[in-house]
Structure formats: structure tokens, C-alpha cells
């Protein structure tokens, strides 16, 4: 156990790397997810402006990238990652597949949260003369803030999971540390500590998400 201290700096560093990967990836996933998810919700058959064709294309896009296992997605995206950040190794490089893998997931979560808005309410808004874009901005998004916060909590937790995988293929972070030191060098204590930190991280995010969602609920 005393040997853990020699890992001290790198352990601290790994935690920071995980936090960096996850927070930057979640940030972009939330932005792209809100855009894509709003489109999905608006054009869905239960949406304010149903458009079968558009919806099906978007849905297919979301499904294809979600059906590829994340580890394989990372490998497939290597050339693109290299093109975008100049390298395929490191935290910055890991963020690319995280965002691309996470966005369709986020979009589906956003779509589900937005379609939770009472269809009767949307009809009432139509009779006020609201346009689909205005409906997203003034009705769908504000009315589903608690649902969106819960969705993004789930997203952040999934991103921690994904980041460990991205870490294992050269992205750094806690997953990387757990595999290289804990598993490959038979350091069970390192493996255990990585897990403990990840568990704490997830608990913290879930707690914060629940608390925020409750705070924003006006119903």
C-alpha cells in the first residue's frame, strides 16, 4: 500500500485527465446533442412539425454511430482524429471519439426529454401562432429543463465509462492507469484505487444532477 505514494503525482494527473476528457466531451456532446435532439423531437411524428423523411435520416445517423462498439469507433476514427488534432495519442485525441460517440447518445436523450412535454401543451402553443423554432426555444427546452439535466447526468456518467476505454488506447486518465499499472503490472491496489475514484466521481455527478434537476422543477 505504501507504494501507492510513489504513484501519487501520476495518479493525481490521471484523475485530472479523466476530468478533462469527460468535461470537454460532455460540453460538446450537450451542444451537439441539443441541436440534433431538438431536430429529432420537432420532426418526430409526435413533434410540432412532423417530417418523416428528415426524422428518418437523422434517426438513422444517430442509430448507426450508436450501434458501433465504442472501442471500434475509436479505431475507425483514428485518421479523422489525427487530421483534427494532429495526433492520435493523448487526452485531446481521446476527446474526438468521445464527442462523436456521445453526440448521438445525447441527441436521443434530448429527444426523449423534449417529447415528454405534454402534446396538448404543444397544440395550445400552435394556436398561439408559434413557429417550430420558437417552440423549441420558448417551450420545449424550458419546459424540459429538469428532464434535460437528468439526461445530461446520464450522459456524463456514460462519458466516464467511455473515457476509460479511450484512455486504454492511449488517451491517458484513470482507465489508462488502471490497465497499464493495475492490470499489466499486477498492481491490484492501483486497480482498486482507480475504481474507487471512478465510483466516487459517478456518485458525485449523480448527486449533483438530481439536486439540480429538483431545483429547476417548477411543476
Amino acid at each position, binding site marked *: 500500500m505504501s507504494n501507492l505514494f510513489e504513484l501519487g503525482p501520476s495518479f493525481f494527473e490521471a484523475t485530472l485527465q479523466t476530468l478533462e476528457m469527460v468535461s470537454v466531451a460532455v460540453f460538446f456532446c450537450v451542444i451537439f446533442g441539443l441541436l440534433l435532439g431538438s431536430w429529432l423531437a420537432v420532426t418526430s411524428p409526435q413533434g410540432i412539425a412532423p417530417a418523416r423523411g428528415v426524422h428518418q435520416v437523422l434517426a438513422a445517423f444517430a442509430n448507426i454511430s450508436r450501434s458501433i462498439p465504442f472501442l471500434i469507433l475509436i479505431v475507425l476514427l483514428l485518421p479523422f482524429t489525427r487530421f483534427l488534432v494532429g495526433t492520435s495519442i493523448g487526452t485531446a485525441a481521446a476527446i474526438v471519439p468521445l464527442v462523436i460517440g456521445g453526440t448521438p447518445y445525447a441527441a436521443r436523450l434530448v429527444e426523449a426529454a423534449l417529447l415528454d412535454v405534454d402534446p396538448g401543451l404543444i397544440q*395550445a402553443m400552435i394556436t398561439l*401562432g408559434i413557429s417550430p423554432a420558437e417552440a423549441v426555444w*420558448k417551450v420545449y427546452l424550458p419546459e424540459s429543463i429538469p428532464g434535460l439535466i437528468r439526461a445530461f447526468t446520464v450522459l456524463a456518467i456514460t462519458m466516464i465509462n467511455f473515457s476509460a476505454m479511450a484512455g486504454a488506447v492511449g488517451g491517458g486518465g484513470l482507465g489508462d492507469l488502471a490497465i497499464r499499472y493495475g492490470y499489466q503490472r499486477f498492481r491490484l491496489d492501483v486497480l482498486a484505487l482507480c475504481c474507487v475514484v471512478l465510483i466516487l466521481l459517478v456518485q458525485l455527478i449523480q448527486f449533483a444532477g438530481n439536486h439540480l434537476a429538483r431545483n429547476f422543477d*417548477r*411543476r
Partner: protein
Amino acid sequence: MRNEQSAIIVRGLTKRFAPGLLPALDAVDIDVPAGSIHGVLGLSGAGKSTLLRCVARLETPDSGEIIVAGSDWTHLSAAALRRERGKMGIVFQHLHLLSSRTVAANIALPLEINGMPRTAVAQRVTELLEWFGIADKAKEYPARLSGGQQQRVALARALATNPRVLLADEPTSALDPETRASVLNTLRSIREQFGVTILIITHDMHSAAAICDTLTVLDAGRVAESGPACELLEHPSTEITRRLLAHTGWPQSSSPPRPLSRQTHFEEIGQP
């Protein structure tokens, strides 16, 4: 002259939800003179909701015309219809206020949608809040209000754009007698204050009798009878009107009501 115009004209309105099914509305004609209060009555399943949805243009009718304040709403493009919608305010049975907006912001919404400048919106909202006696609730969220207060917010929102026509969907059902009386009074004063024509859709014969100038009785998607409220109530000429009257215990001058058929009874409990 303006008062002699019709605020809402419905001509030969037909709506069928699937080919082969009986039409939900079958050649319905309704004429609501400007400044009057008109009631559309009928049992559940008679086509009242479909009529409301067609007049509000949430549904496109299969045939027939809907003319609101002089303009034909039947053949408008989506964009043109959006611009016209300020002429009609609607109070829904379930009110449909935005839980994420304060009372004041809820009332402001239709004005924002119509592109009114911010200061003008604020002024109009203040007027409405005061008229409806909810100025002290301006900053509250709807969930913190009583049912009666919420309904006043919904009315204020419906009237924000100074519409020519107010549609009220079951405004008095699910209310206790006292609140019902106060809502009916409010509707009456709204007509005076806002100079608006009111179309009420209801199965509540009592409320209709208390407030409407003219009535239309719907039965199985058709107009059973139509005319001045007092005449219709004193001398109902159709079975369905007698039945509606019987439900509310309105004093009868004509033949005693027949017991409900099983079919009707089932429809009533099947569709709350």
C-alpha cells in the same frame, strides 16, 4: 355595421378521421354573430372536440369552410395562418400554461410570438394582470396558484392579443358550483370589456343556459338543432336536446325524457 357581421362562420364542415369511418363532423353549419356568446352542446362523442379542433385549425377539415373575423381560415398556408392566429384566443379545458414561465411571462407569450416590442408587452401584461385581479401573482409560477387563478391566467393569455374571438373548451366542467358561477360572470364581463365574440364548447347545459345567447346542439357529428338559447331551452324540438336538458334537471315543458340507451351511457363513461 360591424356588430351585424358574423365573427365565426362554419359552413358545411365535414371531417372524417379514416375512410370508411362515420364522419366525426358531417356538414356542420354554425353562424356566430359578432359580440354574442354561442354555445355548442352535445354528449361525449357528438363531435364537439373535433369542431373545436377544426375551428382552431389544429385539424384540417375534409370539406367546408371556416371563416374567422372575415377571413377564410380553411385555405391558408401555415405561415399565413400563424399570422392570423392572434385573432382567436383559446382557453383549453386543461389550460396548458407553461410551468417554466411565471404568470406574467405566460401572458406575455402570445405577444412575444406576435413580435410586439418589449415595453408594449410589459404594459399590456400589466393591464391584463390588473383586470383579472392577479397582479400580486405576476412573479409566481402557475403550479403555485389555485385552479381558479390558473384559469384567469389562461383567460388573460387568450385575450392578450386582443382577439376578435374567444374559444372556450369546457370552461366550467370540473368546477364546483360557486367557481362555475364566478367563471360565467368573468366570461360575461370579458365580452363587455374586450368586445370579443365567445364560442363555448360544453356538455354542461346549466352553464350554456346561463350565459349563451344562441346554441347549437350536436349529435353524432350533425347539427341537431340551433337557435336562440331561450327558445331551444323552452321548446326543445329534438330528442337529443331534451336528453341534454334532462341530465341537468332543467324544467321541462314538453314530453318526459326517455331513459338513456346503453350505447349513450357507455360513451359517457368511456370518455371522461
